[in-house]
């Protein structure tokens, strides 16, 4: 970075030829734009095709999730938090539930932990597929858009079968997960393991040595390790610079310490490295899913037993999504008054969490997703702060874009993979 101007210098520092330079042009990219990955607005000052300064303006998707959580019970917080980073809903839920469980001091059953890991890794693959689809489309490889969403449909079918919803599931809840896998799900996931590796290989063969793809991505958007850490960047963008930071390895949660996988790094720190990392991460996730399926052979509970914490009902996927199972409805309506009262109390008031604060990081597909939860001993959260990886990663975009060409700005943003729902919350 140039210490005088604070800008990263590209191949020819545009400010050096001041006599010949004409006035720069300030243009606005977004918030409605096909290539900005959501409602991101970039204020670009251009000198011809070269970007002189770049200022990202966010907030066009601000939803007030954090304030809304303070007025809802702890269990309802899951449905709010899951819509922050909407491409990785399981990771949002997992971070929140792990934070609350740490505050409660409870340990979820092992089968629930395996299911959490299983769905998180499938979500990672789904999120990387969306990244591949949109990044390809933004850089002109339109057929990748259709391929990425084709694989994603397979994953979404499994999500729908297990949780009732394709996105924003509210499946991981305080105390475990809400339902066990339905019959047939394991076979579907095994089918996935048969098909997806070949498809990833297909994408690699389409793009990895494609001269246009390499030309647009290699050497573009370089962010060195020191810059990245100073700017708070985490995830594939940081690992592309050679720093092996992966929360699953460094601070294992939900049993990740017992799985065999690698934290993928490269050292060229450009967009192409991030592309390679994400493809490799998809393969690593498939390996973890296979290990999860082995561990799911033994049955077990998926929610803690403690009646003061567990969600009272047994749910099942019905024609209109998740609902109470008929056996449970019979139990509370006809058999046991106590169970009805208990159900009522748990649903309306919910868990009471002792006071304190916890910061729980997880590794979402974009980087370190942290949930900072503060409680004052009540039935409602006192403060929920979502530390979203894209919020920090977008701060690094000016460093990567300034001095480069306008077309590279699109490639850089695509490689950072921001999800504006998480940035703006």
């Amino acid at each position, binding site marked *: 970075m140039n210490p005088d101007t604070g800008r990263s210098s590209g191949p020819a520092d545009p400010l050096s030829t001041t006599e010949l330079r004409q006035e720069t042009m300030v243009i606005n990219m977004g918030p409605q734009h096909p290539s900005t990955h959501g409602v991101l607005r970039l204020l670009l000052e251009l000198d011809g095709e070269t970007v002189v300064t770049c200022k990202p303006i966010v907030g066009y998707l601000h939803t007030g999730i954090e*304030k809304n959580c303070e007025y809802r019970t702890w269990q309802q917080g899951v449905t709010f938090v899951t819509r922050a980073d909407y491409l990785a809903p399981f990771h949002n839920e997992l971070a929140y539930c792990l934070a609350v469980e740490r505050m409660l001091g409870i340990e979820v059953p092992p089968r629930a932990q395996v299911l959490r890991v299983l769905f998180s890794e499938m979500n990672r693959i789904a999120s990387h597929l969306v990244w591949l689809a949109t990044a390809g489309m933004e850089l002109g490889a339109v057929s990748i858009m259709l391929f990425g969403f084709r694989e994603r449909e397979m994953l979404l079918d499994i999500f729908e079968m297990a949780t009732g919803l394709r996105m924003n599931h509210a499946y991981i809840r305080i105390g475990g997960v809400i339902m066990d896998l339905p019959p047939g799900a394991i076979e579907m996931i095994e089918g996935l393991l048969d098909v997806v590796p070949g498809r990833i290989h297909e994408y690699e063969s389409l793009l990895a040595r494609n001269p246009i793809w390499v030309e647009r991505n290699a050497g573009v958007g370089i962010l060195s390790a020191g810059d990245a850490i100073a700017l708070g960047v985490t995830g594939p963008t940081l690992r592309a610079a050679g720093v092996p930071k992966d929360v699953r390895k460094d601070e294992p949660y939900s049993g990740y310490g017992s799985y065999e996988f690698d934290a993928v790094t490269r050292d060229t720190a450009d967009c192409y490295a991030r592309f390679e990392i994400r493809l490799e991460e998809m393969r690593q996730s498939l390996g973890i899913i296979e290990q999860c399926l082995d561990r799911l052979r033994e049955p077990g509970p998926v929610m803690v037993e403690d009646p003061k914490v567990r969600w009272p009902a047994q749910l099942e996927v019905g024609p209109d999504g998740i609902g109470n199972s008929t056996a449970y409805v019979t139990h509370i309506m006809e058999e046991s008054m106590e169970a009805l009262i208990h159900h009522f109390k748990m649903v309306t008031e919910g868990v009471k969490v002792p006071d304190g604060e916890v910061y729980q990081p997880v590794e979402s597909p974009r980087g370190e997703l942290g949930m900072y939860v503060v409680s004052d001993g009540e039935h409602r959260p006192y403060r929920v*702060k979502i530390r979203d990886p894209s919020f920090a990663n977008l701060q690094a975009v000016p460093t990567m874009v300034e001095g480069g060409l306008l077309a590279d700005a699109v490639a850089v943003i695509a490689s950072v993979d921001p999800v504006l729902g998480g940035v703006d919350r």
Partner: protein
Amino acid sequence: MSSSELAARMRERLPDTVVARDEVTSVVAREDLIGTLAGLRDDPALAFDLLASITATDWPERSPRFWVSYELYSTAHRHRVRLKVGLSEDDARVPSVTSLYPTADWHERETYDFFGITFEGHPDLSRILLPDDWDGHPLRKTEELGGVNTRFKGAFVPPVDRRTT
């Protein structure tokens, strides 16, 4: 470094350090914030080089009212620490740490946007998530949730914070 060792190290600089749920939290005074953070970053045994998050919590019945918290992480040693600064309501100012951690830029803007805490020395302290002409700081406990009544099956249901039932 384990949390007890880390807590011992932190106590050398900041006596008000607690360990709870395997996390180390230290309270630091506003005047010592920059010096302490610089020390934590440059000490090779601690090496807190990544500032993960800055946020604030509003405790209107307590004094001080606002508690700004800084989450720090060390990529070399893989440990975390939280620093907290207490600010009173009429003097909600704290020095900006953007000179030490450039990532603090947007985090401080967001905290200003939500709580109205001024970060002195910040290059551009303006609203980031809310519209530029917004009035008020919504995440303060004294502010309402907002929203309108929802019409549902013949009744008007008020937003969550105004419901009596």
